[in-house]
């Protein structure tokens, strides 16, 4: 059974790898790739919460 925690753990791993890439690279291209990883991690979190969280579903329903 895939729960919210699995998505959150994958996104945490992606986020910290992105932070590592941003912090340790000199070239702008590599830094941008790290930033891309961070964006992806944030997006996975948002979609996962929108699918499983009460508050966000209420917010969408009231929209």
């Amino acid at each position: 059974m895939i729960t919210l925690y699995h998505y959150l753990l994958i996104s945490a791993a992606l986020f910290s790898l992105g932070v590592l890439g941003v912090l340790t690279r000199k070239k702008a291209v590599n830094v941008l790739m790290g930033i891309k990883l961070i964006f992806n991690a944030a997006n996975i979190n948002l979609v996962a919460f929108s699918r499983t969280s009460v508050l966000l579903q209420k917010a969408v329903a009231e929209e």
Partner: protein
Amino acid sequence: MSISDIIFVMVGIVTVGSAAVLVLSLSLIDSAFALLFTFFGVAMIYVFLGADFLAATPVLIYVGGILVLLLFGVMLTHRLYNLNLKAETFQIIPGILISLAVFVSLALVATQTRWHLVAEKPVVPTTETIGTLFMTDYLLRFEIASILLLIALIGAAMLVRRRSDA
């Protein structure tokens, strides 16, 4: 474990593994290909979450457009085999420490918090809703974003023009 769990674990391994290759490899070409696999993995995760539009667009835009552009740019502007495409690194020890601290704290927050969970909704196609909202409720924001993109396009064209005939 059901079959979807096994597929999910494999997708997670591919995503995080290729992200690690992206960050750790010293060659820019390897990083770009690893970014491609990372995007595929993230798109698969969106499929698991039932977000069809979000799964399709990164693959179309990044893998089809930006990444190909990046690879072509790298391959055309440098000679592939002799040059200094090696990525220089610095601050390795503090970087590893900080990212480990970030991962541990995020994982602790994710696993220790008691989220208010609901049963997952049945998967419905989202594209129609997104399109309707773009053209009705969010029309102004949509137009502002498109004008911003137009400005960026003109600015890029201005930047790459030769200085002599300016």
